């Protein structure tokens, strides 16, 4: 298995949509073959269409707000005393997270194909919130599928979705989290694909959804590359990019522009959700050696039992609480371009406390996982090493959990 240079990773799949011959593909019911093929034709045409890219960039610039900040965390760097710690503050984007890029692109595609309704799944509620924002902006009706457990634990985002006029449909099947929300959303699409567009909230699902999402979030690394050159005059000689990995949309977007650099120069570190330290359950299929299986239309490393039933996950972070992971990350793991590890619930909470103590930055629980590992590793790295953490979400949505775990006073003071 080999990563090719000079070709975008999203376009390195084979004829049937498999990366490295075995990750991804289109394991979908016959009914979805046609709408998926239509979307593929549309996307393949538009991703090279200058007027479409201009339109995308106009919305990215004027509505989402680009570029998001790239800042040095001076106090944290001093406190840790190793590598320089920086952050790409993607939570600056309109709506407060990276999910806005994919949502915007899907709405643009839906508009162009004449669809009136767009549906989507959500875990932490960001994908849903952003899709509801974009749908409102572009005049589309919007339905969001969300696990009943997630609805309870991510109320601020649920309120935002409703305010934007979206129907939030609670999913009560299975573990009542993201995995069930994606299934229910796909089922709805099976029954309504003639009138409705579907947005998959991460770089997961049938191949074309993986590609569209990766293409959209790559805005993050396009910006970062320019910012690095402005700051350092070049892409630094020792650069490490830390990002949490649930489905894998923010990390893929954070890394994409640097794919062709030698990994000794630009290293990618993906941090999965290890779950509570006392629990055997986790959401870290890459770290803990899960087997390849089929989930939501794609072959990937996924938590499952020996029969092939998908296993329940556990994580404090709803956005990372997914048993599978993007085929793109499976490909980056097996080609050894990226390194994957996990942080526990407790480690993420601790990292959140450290970051908020020293910096005027409030990463949500998802990037707090990445901060945990970055802080640990930065200690041992030289001062000329540039560590960058993608702070891809804001903790406002987590205030309920943070209050419960860390106390009211702590949350208020931040």
């Amino acid at each position, binding site marked *: 298995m080999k990563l090719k240079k000079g070709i975008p990773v999203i376009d390195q799949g084979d004829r049937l949509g498999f990366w490295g011959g075995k990750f991804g593909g289109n394991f979908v019911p016959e009914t979805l073959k*046609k709408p998926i093929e239509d979307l593929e034709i549309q996307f393949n045409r538009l991703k090279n269409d200058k007027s479409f890219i201009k339109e995308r960039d106009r919305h990215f610039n004027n509505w989402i707000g680009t570029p998001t900040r790239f800042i040095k965390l001076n106090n944290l760097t001093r406190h840790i005393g190793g590598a320089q710690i920086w952050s790409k503050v993607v939570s600056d984007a309109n709506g407060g997270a990276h999910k806005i890029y994919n949502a915007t692109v899907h709405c643009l595609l839906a508009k162009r194909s004449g669809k009136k309704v767009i549906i989507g799944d959500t875990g932490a509620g960001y994908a849903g919130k952003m899709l509801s924002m974009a749908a409102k902006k572009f005049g589309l009706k919007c339905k969001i599928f969300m696990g009943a457990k997630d609805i309870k634990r991510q109320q601020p985002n649920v309120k935002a979705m409703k305010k934007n006029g979206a129907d939030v449909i609670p999913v009560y099947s299975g573990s009542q989290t993201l995995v069930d929300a994606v299934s229910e959303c796909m089922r709805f699409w099976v029954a309504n694909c003639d009138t409705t567009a579907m947005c998959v909230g991460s770089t997961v699902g049938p191949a074309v959804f993986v590609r569209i999402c990766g293409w959209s979030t790559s805005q993050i690394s396009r910006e970062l590359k320019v910012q690095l050159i402005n700051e350092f005059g070049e892409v630094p000689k020792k650069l490490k990019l830390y990002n949490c990995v649930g489905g894998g949309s923010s990390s893929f977007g954070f890394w994409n522009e640097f794919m062709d650099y030698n990994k000794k120069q630009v290293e990618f570190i993906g941090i999965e959700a290890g779950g509570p330290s006392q629990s055997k359950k986790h959401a870290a299929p890459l770290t803990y050696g899960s087997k390849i299986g*089929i989930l939501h239309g794609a072959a990937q490393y996924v938590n499952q039992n020996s029969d*092939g*039933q998908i296993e329940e996950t556990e994580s404090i972070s709803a956005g990372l609480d997914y048993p599978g992971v993007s085929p793109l990350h499976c490909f980056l793991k097996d080609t050894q371009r990226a390194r994957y590890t996990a942080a526990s619930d407790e480690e993420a909470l601790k990292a959140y406390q450290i970051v908020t103590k020293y910096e005027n930055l409030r990463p949500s629980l998802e990037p707090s996982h990445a901060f945990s590992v970055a802080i640990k590793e930065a200690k041992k790295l030289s001062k000329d090493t540039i560590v960058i953490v993608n702070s891809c979400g804001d903790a406002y949505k987590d205030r309920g959990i943070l209050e419960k775990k860390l106390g009211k006073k702590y949350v208020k003071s931040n």
Partner: protein
Amino acid sequence: MLNPINLAFKNAKKENRPALLTYTVAGDSSKKQSLEILKAISNYADILEVGVPHNTPVADGGQIQTSAYRAIKNGIKMNDIFKIVSEYKKSKNSKPVIFMGYYNMIFQYGENNFLKECKKSGVNGLIVVDLPWPENKIFSKKCKKNSINFIQLLSPTTSNKRLKSITRDSHDMIYYISMLSTTGGKLKVSPKKILANYNKIKKVSSKKNCVIGFGITEKTISNFKKTDGLVVGSQICKEITRSLNNRQNPVINVSKMVNKLKKKIS
């Protein structure tokens, strides 16, 4: 020699009616009871689809999901399902059995092992919901080699070009999904339109038996008397749930229902 699935269609045709195919989930509500249900409905049904329960089913509606989750909760494993089939096949009035499920279950078992066990236990055909054409080309060839029918699915969204390729690569039986829906949806398309699509398929591939599924219930089944076969699934699963909730015996209730279905198309 005709294979058992073709034979079942032929027998139904002799009686001038479509073949009746039922769908129940293996292990619903228990291993023992699902076997009893299979035996009981064999008096009326021609071919039995046995659902292999999966916990992330992307094409199943509420009723079948409920049955599948119930079976999984009660501990059903792939090997138990093979055992249920081989036990069933020992009964004197046994009918052809078609497994219906999702590809991950086959993938984890190993394609070759899976087919070996199918053969051993007496499974006659396979419907793999999320392994469409052309992704299924290699696996369907393997099935053929093992004398197991790989049943291709067609839907209202299938283009004419695909229709031709898929029917060309299909074995003895084709499954037409009546409408854009998960299983258990209400029939939202007129029977006339469904039959027009059915006839289009028969025109392209007249020799193969084509069954219609999705939205087929006691209420709608008599609209489709002039077809090769009809599948009833969700209504049966719903009846199992209803029986359990009312503390009645699902075996008796389901078998009554299948009897009624048969009468409506006879």
